[in-house]
């Protein structure tokens, strides 16, 4: 089980969740992807679309930087 990181704080719709999906596809079952994203549209869409596709959203936490979040998704 490995942990991977993805930063989509500079991206916009649809690349925030497109990049997340592409990364998740590369993972093995059990691996965790930590996605760094901004509040608003990415924070709403990335965890929701991951859950809808059967991935396990382990945590959603705000980082030290206000408005920047870390979302942990397990395949």
């Amino acid at each position: 089980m490995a942990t991977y990181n993805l930063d989509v704080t500079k991206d916009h719709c649809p690349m925030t969740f497109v990049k997340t999906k592409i990364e998740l596809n590369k993972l093995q079952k059990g691996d965790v992807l930590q996605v760094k994203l901004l509040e608003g549209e990415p924070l709403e869409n990335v965890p929701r679309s991951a859950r809808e596709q059967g991935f396990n959203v382990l945590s959603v936490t705000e980082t030290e930087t206000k408005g920047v979040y870390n979302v942990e998704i397990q395949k």
Partner: protein
Amino acid sequence: MTTKKLSIIAFSGDFDKLTAVFTLATGAAAVGYEVNIFFTFWGLDALKIKQGRSPLGSNWLTKVFGVMMGGLKASPTTRFNFCGIGPKIFRYLMRKNNVATLEELVEAAKVLGINFYACEMAMHILGLKKEDFIPEVKDVLGVASFLKLSEGGQTLFI
């Protein structure tokens, strides 16, 4: 979990409309939709291996059309084309604002396994062959096959 489905008829070869096609397609695929894009007429430009202007065609007339239409890199904007400067300006603005460019969206669409189909009738008129297109083109289809593919999902015409 039943798979949701989005089928898009990409009729336009315009830069901005193709951007809409690939934005919707990649977004839908990323949230778990099965996505089919049926490229017809001007839309076929997006599939050409040669992304610039090249004389693809079966006779002198279609070869002239081939040069005039060009590929993805030669696609004009619907408005503010300014003889081809428009798309360059939009590409610059997209990069500057960290918005995916058309080329990036097309690459993402390939990685996400979106199904690309080419219209048989339009290919025939324009003298284009399957070999003129990128290898990701899954099949060459007609209306009946497309209707069957899109059945039970949402369909858009762009």
